[in-house]
């Protein structure tokens, strides 16, 4: 899966599952401050990403991820490491 596809997929999760208005989901948007996610939401998002990539992530992997781009980068890096 390319980075663009990943970004697209994460965007659609944020919009559909977390009710984030589409126009707010920019690559630089901060998950907690701008998109109103909470720590429980983060766990749900990680589960979704696991389903998407069929890989196992731990919340630790995303601890320092603050923006949408950060999440894409982490997932991308971990998929490449697996491949």
């Amino acid at each position, binding site marked *: 899966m390319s980075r663009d596809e990943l970004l697209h997929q994460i965007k659609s999760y944020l919009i559909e599952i*977390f009710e984030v208005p589409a126009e707010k989901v920019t690559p630089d948007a901060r998950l907690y401050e701008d998109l109103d996610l909470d*720590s*429980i939401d983060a766990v*749900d998002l990680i589960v979704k990403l696991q389903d998407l990539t069929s890989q196992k992530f731990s919340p630790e992997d995303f601890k320092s991820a603050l923006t949408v781009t950060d999440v894409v980068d982490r997932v991308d890096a971990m998929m490449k490491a697996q491949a």
Partner: protein
Amino acid sequence: MLDWLARIYRTLGTGFFFAILFGGGAVIATIAFPIVSLTTRNTERRWARKQYIIHLLFRFYIGLMRFMRLAFFEFRGLEKLRDAPGKLVIANHPSLLDVVLLMSLIPRAQCIVKQELWESPYLGRLVRGAGYISNALPSEQLLAACRQAIELDACLIVFPEGTRSTPGAPIQLQRGFANIALLLGLDIQLVTITCTPPTLLKGQKWYEIPARRPVFCVDVGQVISVAHLLNDHARPLAARKLVRTVAAYYEDRLANG
């Protein structure tokens, strides 16, 4: 002249009650709590006993305020609180007395407290000693603590506004309570607290008393069951929906009484 005297009486009285809440809290935590701790080995029973002591003291506190005619108190739907154990009790937060009022009505109450209170030099020892739950805990530990409270048949008090609110301002609820209710499958007992005229607001000094004696009203209202929400939606959406439902409830209650 009489008005003037009455005002002085109320100012002094308010100051006295303010002082015994903080000072008394610290004294109880330093004197009564160690006795309980020494005589009760089991941690959960220790908490339960301390929580019961707090309940009795707060009952006495409200009773004394009433007796000294510093404020009026009105209670509605109190019988519903008999079923509160095992439920999440949610209340709006207009005044400093809200938690005192709720705990005076519920013998076995657990409460999620904000970090400032947890670390307060006056009341910190009291809230930590009674085993209340700090909102600064990581979410998994927070949930585990809430689950434990419910298993011990306490009810869990949460003020979803997070801190005292400004009367008349739009209701702003944090989502944590909804996550707790959904993840633990708890019914929510809604309580509406009003204080007219407003007093003991955030940022107000204790001596800035209102022109007439305040009336505190505690209205134990609707119970919201969350089970069906999870049938229709995934947890994140259900939580957001629940927050909106509860916010709408409070907006309606506060606008229409």
